[in-house]
């Protein structure tokens, strides 16, 4: 599957973004699995709320990070595709 700008991703069934205080990090908890997102993935995951489109997420990131919008869009789509393959997000 590949997400497009208009797609509205949400976390997959049972997936929760949680703070792991003991280890000073954020994690994605899922059904008997856990992922530690890197800094960029964490920024993206924080915007995944089932209401924002990929375009809106990219606008938000483009306003905060100094990078061309098309570059951010390509990175976010690639990252969300990867997370979708793992079942972390669904579109």
């Amino acid at each position, binding site marked *: *599957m590949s997400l497009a700008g208009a797609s509205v991703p949400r976390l*997959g*069934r*049972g997936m*929760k973004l*949680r703070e*792991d205080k*003991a*280890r000073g990090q954020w*994690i994605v*908890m*899922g*059904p*008997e699995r*856990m992922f530690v997102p890197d800094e960029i993935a964490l920024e993206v995951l924080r915007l995944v709320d089932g209401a924002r489109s990929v375009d809106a997420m990219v606008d938000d990131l483009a306003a905060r990070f100094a990078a061309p919008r098309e570059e951010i869009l390509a990175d976010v789509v690639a990252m969300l595709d990867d997370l*979708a*393959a*793992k*079942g972390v997000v669904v579109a």
Partner: protein
Amino acid sequence: MSTPPAAPLALLAELTHRCPLRCPYCSNPVNLTRVAEELDTATWARVFREAAALGCLQVHLSGGEPTARRDIADLVRAASEAGLYTNLITSGVLTGDAKLQTLVEAGLEHVQLSVQDAEPGSGDRIGGYRGGHAKKLEFARLVHDSGLPLTLNAVVHRQNLDRLPDMIALALALGAGRLEVAHVQYYGWALANRDALLPTRAQLEAATATVEAARRDLKGRLVIDYVVPDYYARRPKACMGGWGRQFLAVSPAGRVLPCHAAESLPGFDFPNVRDVSLRWAWEDSEAFNRFRGTGWMPAPCQGCEHAERDWGGCRCQAFALTGDAAATDPACALSPHHAVLSLAVGAAAEAGEAFTYREPRRDVTSVSG
């Protein structure tokens, strides 16, 4: 040890050994704990808080059948309030719609449902519980309708492995997002039934090919986790990710264990949550430190390039097959005892299909006439 060990990631809470099913490969110890010995609600709630404070992120509420406890909703709520991701590992035969709703409201986040086969007659025979398979299918439907994520756990062996494609189809039909295909691990009850359960090499190879093809075809729809059987392996599994490295279990009676089967090991004084904190058990107890790291390892493991990958394999299997819990797991081709595995495979090929079902201990007082 000067620095404390890394924190555990997950707690297995074995709430009870009671279960209506009698699976011949049950992972509970052969000596089952009685109801009167079980921890109460308040003690479990304290264990969950201590586990979260120690660094656990997830709790597996298991058994026996965890919903056999009347306080199961209170226990789910206590785990959830402690901040743990709560997973119920269940046979599904005791939970109807009303009870499931109370668990959802209490904060349950995931359900793992066991199935014994894809076919009702065989499933009911393996579980030793008539009508169980149909109840499981109904429970799976309730879980799906509730919005909870569902994992199907299929324990596989010689007597059901040929229907693995049907089990994969069943997982899809039930709306499971995840399927665990777990070859039986031969400790406890399963060891007693090894001759009736060990698959043939041809069955194993077909199963592995089936899983690999299904993983490709169902990418993004169904995650398949695959636990391979040791008896055809050349390297042992990193059991529990290594003794006292990632995982701890608490038994129905409160004993803190590096793995749920560890009570079968002799010569241990496992700490009890009635007496000590979970942190003390994890960091300071002799039981958790005995096989932690690599210092305890015998010759084939000591200095081996795999030592920090497989951590010497499984202590329970080492004890069960060599009589020495500190031996290299015989699943390793470098173990001097590796041949016992092929001897077992040979014996199983000659054996019949009859099971020794899991049964409670019989009290002398309950024997009549």
